[in-house]
């Protein structure tokens, strides 16, 4: 049906490049690394990973988390069997804050979070 319709890329008003993204450690994703999975229109589930032993990658991850929360993304982390929504991010301590006590803090290096963009009721 509509899959047969083809569009010219430049009509989308974005620059077109027929190349793949290189983001941080994307080329060799280590499944064991912490990070954030982002729900994405073109990817389904886009994985951002960082190596906790590499300060530049940790710094980039911190910037990304801060930016996402600023833009209204809902970030979810698992703690035990619970899924919890991140309320804030402590840049100094590198922890997700999910409650009001120190026990309700999750280090970014010990979890894989999932981020969802702002949602609209359908």
């Amino acid at each position, binding site marked *: 049906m509509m899959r*047969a319709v*083809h569009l010219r890329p430049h009509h*989308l008003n974005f620059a077109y490049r027929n190349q793949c*993204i290189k983001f941080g450690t994307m080329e060799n994703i280590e499944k064991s690394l912490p990070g954030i999975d982002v*729900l994405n229109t*073109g990817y*389904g589930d*886009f994985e951002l990973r960082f190596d906790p032993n590499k300060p530049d990658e940790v710094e980039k991850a911190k910037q990304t988390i801060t930016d996402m929360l600023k*833009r209204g993304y809902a970030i979810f982390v698992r703690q035990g069997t619970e899924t919890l929504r991140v309320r804030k991010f402590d840049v100094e301590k590198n922890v997700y804050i999910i409650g009001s006590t120190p026990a309700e803090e999750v280090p970014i290096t010990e979890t894989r979070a999932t981020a969802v963009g702002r949602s609209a009721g*359908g």
Partner: protein
Amino acid sequence: MGEEAQPQVGTDFVTYAQASRQLAEIQLEQQDWSGVPIPVVGLKLVLEPRYRHIGLSEFRWKECYDEQGVRHTIEEEPPPKPSEFTTVNSWWNERYQLTIAVVQDKQGYAQSRVLFEHRLAFTIRTLEAASVWPVEAEQKAVQKLASLIPADQFEIYLLTGHFAEISKRSRVTYLFRKGRPTIALRQDEKSSYPLCALCLHPIGYYGDTWAGVMCPTDDVIAHLLMMRGSEEKFWANANQHPIDRPAAGV
């Protein structure tokens, strides 16, 4: 002079799904993490009001190309004429399965109107919107879902497109469905009754369809995470459709 190279499908011309993938790649470099919704000819793109590319909801395609590279102009639908009536009230009639509206003309005289919503039209429009979902995106989303729910539930999802989970907090049962709103049920030992259908899409959706701008299993993941991590926000952000309305998708 040599002949002009023929434009190629997949590079010079792309499908909606290919455009979605390519735009997502480009936008990731600019730290735009969610990708970009793709407008579809004939469907209304409804975006979350604070979304950074909100202007896309006004975007209209002007031309498209068939598989031989032949250009086709897309006629823009004329804007609807302003109505001389204003809606005073409307309600859903369960018995006749339609919406009854009371309208008023400029002189203040009231009239009634009957509005039909067709389930089949919802289904067909949803199929049209499905052309924007890259298959690989859905496959990745399915993998992600597998990591979030028990194996037996995931098997049921693969087989039927549905799975259920009871909220630890409210004890409400949620029936998550691929490509349809989530049904909230109250269950006890003797009976169960539906509360409503919860419709919510990250970033946006196509009007009068069940399709979000993200692939269907991404919508399911968003519903599941919001239910688990922020149930009250899930209810607050979702549209709550009565279960017998076509929009509920039952």
